[in-house]
């Protein structure tokens, strides 16, 4: 039995959690007026969610727009301040960490964003984009060694190391997403948060990036939080899955259970809405 299958059975009971999320809440205040700001209440983006992500597993968060899934990603990555609740990473509460004390956490917890077009600085070469985390964290202060490290990373994600001096516009969407993944891997993170990593890509390219992520996860023993609106992609990638709706987790189940016997009406509604699901793909057709 593969490690992945183990993890899908394991769930919170088996293995050791790398990430623990407790009652995580994020409200965005809604203000009106420039001079006299009046608080008109708040948007409850995330409303007290709890889950654990085991070491080596891929944990999926699926939901529609406004469900709070991307806010959750940003809260875990500490790109947003939670209103309440706790995020524990490797046993340590990282919710209260600020500024300098966050830096070591950033090395271990990296994000791959949706849009490979806006997440790469167009004025920088691919080499310096991927090298940036190494520079910021002073991991590889020596130039030649840094270049070697970057070229290795480019190779790891299936890019030509000789493209070191090229600019993002010279790359296709799929290649740019590989650059984003290489950058996220630069510091050897333990946890990778992938927020809609293939949504902006064409289908033929999507498969390349999904295969790459799955391969990297196994090869490097990464733990992954994979966020998507696409139920088929989530099913392909994730061991356990949380379904989010209006800021809450409405169902959390193993992959096989969620797709074969969803318990919540909302999950069933989502699954039923996937167009042509049972008609696409060669294996769905009886011989």
């Amino acid at each position, binding site marked *: 039995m593969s490690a992945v299958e183990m993890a899908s059975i394991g769930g919170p009971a088996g293995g050791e959690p790398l990430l623990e999320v407790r009652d995580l809440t994020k409200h965005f205040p809604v203000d009106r007026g420039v001079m006299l700001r009046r608080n008109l209440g708040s948007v409850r983006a995330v409303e007290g969610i709890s889950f654990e992500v085991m070491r080596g597993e891929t944990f999926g968060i699926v939901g529609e727009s406004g469900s709070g899934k991307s806010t959750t990603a940003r809260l875990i990555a500490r790109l947003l301040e939670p209103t309440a609740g706790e995020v524990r990473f490797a046993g340590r509460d990282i919710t209260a960490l600020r500024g300098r004390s966050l830096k070591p956490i950033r090395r271990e917890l990296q994000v791959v964003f949706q849009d490979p077009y806006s997440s790469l600085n167009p004025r920088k070469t691919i080499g310096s984009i991927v090298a940036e985390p190494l520079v910021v964290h002073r991991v590889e202060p020596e130039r030649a060694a840094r270049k070697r490290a970057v070229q290795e990373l480019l190779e790891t994600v299936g890019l030509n190391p000789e493209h070191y001096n090229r600019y993002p516009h010279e790359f296709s969407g799929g290649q740019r997403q590989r650059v984003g993944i290489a950058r996220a891997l630069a510091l050897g993170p333990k946890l990778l948060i992938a927020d809609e990593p293939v949504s902006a890509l064409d289908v033929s390219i*999507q498969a390349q990036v999904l295969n790459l992520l799955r391969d990297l996860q196994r090869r490097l023993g990464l733990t992954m939080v994979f966020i998507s609106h696409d139920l088929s992609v989530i099913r392909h990638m994730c061991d356990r899955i949380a379904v989010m709706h209006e800021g809450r987790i409405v169902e959390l189940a193993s992959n096989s259970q969620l797709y074969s016997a969803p318990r919540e009406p909302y999950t069933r509604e989502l699954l039923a809405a996937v167009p042509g699901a049972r008609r696409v793909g060669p294996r*769905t057709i009886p011989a």
Partner: protein
Amino acid sequence: MLGTRAGRSEIPGSPIGKDAARGDEEPLLRVEDLRVSYSTEDGLVQAVDGISYELARGHTLGIVGESGSGKTVAALSVLGLTRAEGATVSGQIAFAGHGDLLALPEPQLRAVRGNEIAMVFQDPLSSLHPMYRVGAQIVEAIRAHREITKSAARARAIELLDLVGIPEPSVRVDSYPHELSGGQRQRAMIAMALSGEPKLLIADEPTTALDVTVQAQILALLSRLQRERGMALVLVTHDLGVVAEMADEIAVMYAGRIVEHAPAERIFEVPEHPYTWGLLRSIPTLDGPREELLTPIPGSPPSPLALPPGCRFHPRCPYSEPEHARTDPTLAPVPGQPDHEVACLLDPDVRRRLWSELRAESTQRSAT
């Protein structure tokens, strides 16, 4: 299928069902050797390079392709919307007895467009004017094609909003676009598209910006309207799931060409083109084996500025032979299947063998 009674006149507004559309009738739409090119700073871009297809009344054609395949340009040309942008267009587009739309002077084309041919775009927020009430925009669309009083047009607008399933249409008619949800805005766009009596609706990625549950509602709405009004539908999308759900026939586009065109079932069951195989094998499904590896298509689509010689798919095709870099395949029927066309240089028997091997491979993987 070309009918013998060419130029047959039709009864305006009569609902013709799908069944009536079958047979040796003149097709509603016939596109012949359509070519659209743009000259850009970097050189000539051949966006659409000689595509031909027909669409019967009441039928749905799904045009599938990745970005840059020319699928949107192929659809926009039918509306003459590519004219203004410094594009060179050639070929013929025959529609509902109007002769060649491409040869029609602009005022006459305008009478057809928005009236007999309507369009729904991907992003309703950018196609609705943000400063005008939804109802006013529909009224404008109605009065653009018909001599009708403002109040009668308003009543018609409310009727249309009701028809597309917007709750409280007599209230919503006075809403601004930003006051509607994404799904409701797309419904409002569809209402506007129906303001004429379209025989053909062209929908370009109509649900791409929407959530999956809303998408399901909009697709159901399009099917219902199409059934009730006997409207033909050209559905342009990158999503094979959407065409699987909606289309009677599917045209797969690659690098400005149609590479395969067949009834929808055949595209999913016995696809003939290696690119179609690649598409089908690269998408994860809801009921396949989970451990199955996706098989991506290697490389990326060619730049329209530098199309490869010969078969345009040959650099990415696992089955290409040296010869395929020199010969340009034409779209032709598969032996024994007049309604299944493919542009592939492989021998039909070889193709059949390859596909059954690929299929066996995936069933084998699902068994383990």
